[in-house]
């Protein structure tokens, strides 16, 4: 399988997209658990209960990562691909930074 896809590059790109999605709060979809309903847009209706964006952040990170990781494996020279794969070192830090920006209001006592 890894002849056709660079697994480290998948991790790098999916993490980067997830971090951006969290940072700008752009999920692929929202889930309203109170009414068990999915929506591609944010519905301004309080009777639906809280919207969950976490699934949508994960979902939006996977497709571009697959495309880039396959294209990278098939098209890029090995040296460049190895350099990109080395970006796996920054994966936890970009997600932690985006997560901090998104969630710090809780720690500062300001609520969600």
């Amino acid at each position: 399988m890894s002849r056709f896809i660079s697994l480290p590059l998948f991790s790098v790109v999916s993490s980067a997209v997830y971090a951006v999605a969290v940072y700008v709060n752009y999920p692929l979809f929202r889930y309203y658990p109170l009414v068990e309903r999915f929506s591609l847009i944010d519905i301004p209706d309080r009777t639906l209960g809280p919207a969950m964006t976490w699934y949508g952040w994960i979902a939006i990170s996977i497709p571009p990562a697959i495309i880039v990781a396959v294209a990278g494996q098939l098209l890029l020279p090995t040296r460049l691909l190895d350099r990109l794969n080395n970006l796996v070192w920054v994966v936890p830090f970009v997600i932690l930074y985006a997560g901090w920006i998104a969630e710090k209001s809780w720690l500062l006592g300001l609520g969600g």
Partner: protein
Amino acid sequence: MTVFLVILHALVSIALIGAVTHQGLSVWRRPAPVRGFIDRFRAVPAAGYTAPIILLYVIDFGLGSYIYPAYVLDVKASLADFGLYTEIFLFQAKEHIAVIGFLLLPAYWHYWKKAGLGEFTMTRRFVTTVVLIAVWWNLVIGHLLNNVRGLL
């Protein structure tokens, strides 16, 4: 049903934490004669843990994702009512840290199974340690939140 799944989630986490701790400590060990309990704990064939760790992580992540709405509706609302924002922050961090481990799994597999064990040693150590920290954080914070909810 949710209580059963929460307990199952915790049990899978415990199996996962055992496996990833063995591997995570082993990956930093230099070849040397085994002495004492800690050394025996670390002196395991670490590569053999990779597939079980990935399987357990995916199962645990799936279980956690499935029961997450129950947390949002019941637990998080209670925590907010009591002004326990720090606890909410810790759990919000848990969701992102769980994703770090989840999205790193393909790279983790690559550096353990596809790259030669003589190559990328530091990268393999780094990725394994990140997965180890993610698993420990998630189990400890999940347990903490479960206990806090029981006290409310």
